[in-house]
């Protein structure tokens, strides 16, 4: 197991290729590191500058007056080996190689030499061909992506650079709190398995999201992901989900065992939840990182419209979840205020005439009923209520009940509904614009429990 402690808790970070010029990668990395608030020392390395962003510059890593733990290497590919020698002699432990121009363009030898050299000095390599890394508990943002990621409990590993950096921005927009972002690039040395092993044990991380093009060592990936699943959910988006052309093979099995089928099998055995899209992955991340795990299977759906209820029930059924009769206490409580024609099966339809107050009471009662284990709240924008008020009622009910149960919400409507979703998001109550997404996100929570059980039993036998 790779010891990544000093990568995530370094005393000093050097940025080789630091630049004074705004817009340059070597400038943005130094700026992000400084302004995101890294508490250790930051050493820009640039032989032609005295100072960058108020930080004293050094001509080389070896001229820095103390040993640095991490060297971010932002120089062109052909200069990387010299930097590795310099950093290695200076005792650096990790090289974070931003530069591209290695294996991804066929430059296999240069990449292999990079790893050989680094290992000679006992140094591990993240990259090359990456946008850097983030670890919010140490206030590290050593990327040229957005500066102000939201601190939180989601670790995101991305094999794609451009998409990864874009998703980094999207986490901010979506209100997803981040513990770490790892741009893993060519995985010349450190790979998904190494980081999974760290995040499995990391108390600051409760969900791991991976954007994966391909595993480097399949067996090690399954092992590391399975161990992580035992402790926290791992969600993966696998690039290339459709089979383009059948494989030519001399056997039936060989021709049917396409890349997709094999990854699906591997993910199942590792307990990894496979998301079909970025949207789905983010939806699931919210549901899993903002909710506790349910204590049982009694899922209750509360709605003010039949249609939204049916869409939810169907989506749940697609995921193997079938709603049971709602518990008695909850039904008795709801009966007190809804009209006699309201359907109190599951979904519980508090009807289109439901005022904000009924949402408060229904959600409160569901939270208070010990036989309810999880809740989906649906709201269709009506003439008599405002979605923001409904959002507030849900938030108040959660606060007043003093219990958190897995909950997903869908506020369906126009601009006002979106405002309500924003409000819920701020309170870390996962809310979505469609009932299907709220249902799929809730299903992901139950899928995780099932996946974890499979892995537990698998590792026992």
């Amino acid at each position: 197991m790779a010891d990544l402690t000093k990568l995530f808790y370094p005393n000093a970070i050097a940025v080789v290729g630091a630049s004074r010029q705004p817009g340059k990668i070597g400038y943005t990395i130094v700026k992000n590191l400084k302004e995101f608030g890294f508490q250790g020392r930051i050493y820009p390395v640039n032989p032609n500058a005295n100072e960058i962003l108020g930080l004293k510059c050094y001509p080389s890593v070896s001229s820095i007056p103390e040993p640095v733990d991490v060297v971010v290497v932002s120089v062109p590919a052909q200069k990387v080996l010299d930097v590795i020698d310099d950093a290695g002699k200076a005792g650096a432990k990790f090289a974070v190689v931003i530069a591209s121009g290695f294996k991804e363009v066929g430059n296999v030898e240069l990449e292999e030499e990079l790893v050989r050299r680094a290992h000679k000095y006992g140094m591990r390599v993240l990259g090359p061909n990456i946008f850097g890394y983030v670890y919010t508990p140490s206030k590290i943002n050593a990327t040229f992506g957005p500066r102000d990621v939201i601190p939180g409990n989601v670790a995101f590993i991305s094999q794609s650079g451009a998409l990864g950096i874009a998703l980094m921005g999207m986490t901010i927009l979506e209100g997803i709190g981040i513990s770490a972002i790892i741009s893993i690039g060519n995985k010349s040395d450190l790979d998904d398995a190494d980081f999974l092993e760290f995040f499995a044990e990391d108390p600051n991380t409760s969900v791991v999201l991976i954007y994966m093009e391909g595993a480097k060592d399949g067996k090690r990936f399954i092992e590391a992901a399975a161990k992580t699943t035992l402790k926290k959910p791992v969600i993966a988006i696998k690039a290339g989900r459709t089979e383009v052309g059948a494989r030519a093979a001399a056997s039936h099995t060989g021709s049917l065992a396409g890349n997709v089928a094999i990854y699906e099998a591997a993910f199942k055995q590792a307990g990894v939840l496979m998301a079909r899209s970025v949207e789905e992955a983010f939806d699931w991340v919210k549901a899993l990182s903002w909710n506790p795990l349910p204590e049982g299977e009694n899922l209750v759906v509360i709605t003010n419209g039949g249609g939204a209820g049916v869409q939810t029930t169907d989506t749940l059924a697609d995921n193997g979840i079938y709603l049971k009769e709602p518990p008695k206490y909850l039904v008795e409580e709801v009966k007190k205020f809804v009209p006699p024609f309201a359907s109190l099966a599951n979904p519980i339809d508090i009807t289109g005439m439901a005022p904000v107050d009924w949402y408060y009471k229904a959600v409160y009662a569901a939270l208070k009923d010990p036989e309810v284990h999880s809740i989906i709240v649906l709201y269709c924008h009506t003439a008599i209520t405002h979605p923001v008020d409904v959002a507030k009622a849900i938030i108040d009910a959660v606060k007043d009940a003093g219990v958190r149960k897995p909950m997903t919400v869908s506020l369906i409507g126009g601009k006002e509904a979106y405002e309500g979703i924003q409000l819920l998001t701020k309170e870390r109550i996962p809310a979505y614009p469609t009932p299907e997404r709220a249902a799929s996100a809730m299903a992901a929570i139950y899928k995780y429990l099932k996946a974890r059980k499979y892995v537990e039993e698998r590792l026992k036998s």
Partner: protein
Amino acid sequence: MDVKEIIARAREENRRKLLEHEVYAICAHFGLPVPKHGLATNEDEAVEIANKVGYPVVLKIVSPDIAHKSDVGGVILNLTSDKDVREAYRKIMENVKARAPNARIAGILVQEMVPYGLEVIVGGTRDPTFGPVIMFGLGGIFVEVLKDVSFRIAPIKSIDAEEMIREIRAYRILEGYRGEPPRDLEAVKDIIVKTSKLMLELEDVQDIDLNPVMLYEKGRGAKIADARIILR
């Protein structure tokens, strides 16, 4: 025949596809339920083997140069007497001589007629990233047209095999459906797990197809009716 010897000889002769009796020998070594069989190099031997495995039997040409045995008249089914076997032996030799005159002949396989059951397929292939991958599905149109198969990465544990079986869409057929009896799922599980062991232990094997495996009623096991192994 020793497993290593079989592979070494195939390598020597530059064959990637193993001969049928070689495949059966390897399968038997791993405890897979192969049909009773023997390789005959003359008529007398064929009769002797037929009596040993018990009638009815099937005769199949064994040649590294013939990919589709039936196309050259190299397979005759359902033989019930010594006389039938002698005639079939001669007929197959004549057919092959006429239609594949340059084919090398290893002999003729005499095999028990495997009783009909529900046809399933168990297979293995080697993936560059994950190593051996094992497949399960129902035979015929289920695998050919619907591609209704499930996969797991080796080593396959008992729970993986259970999930593989339950995962296919046609699972209900295995459970027993409209007068069809429930099938011997323990026997399939056993075959899946043993195929995984075979793939893990024999790194020379690129692909294995056990297709079809005849699956019988619960408690009555399963038997491989045809199999192929491709070396790396």
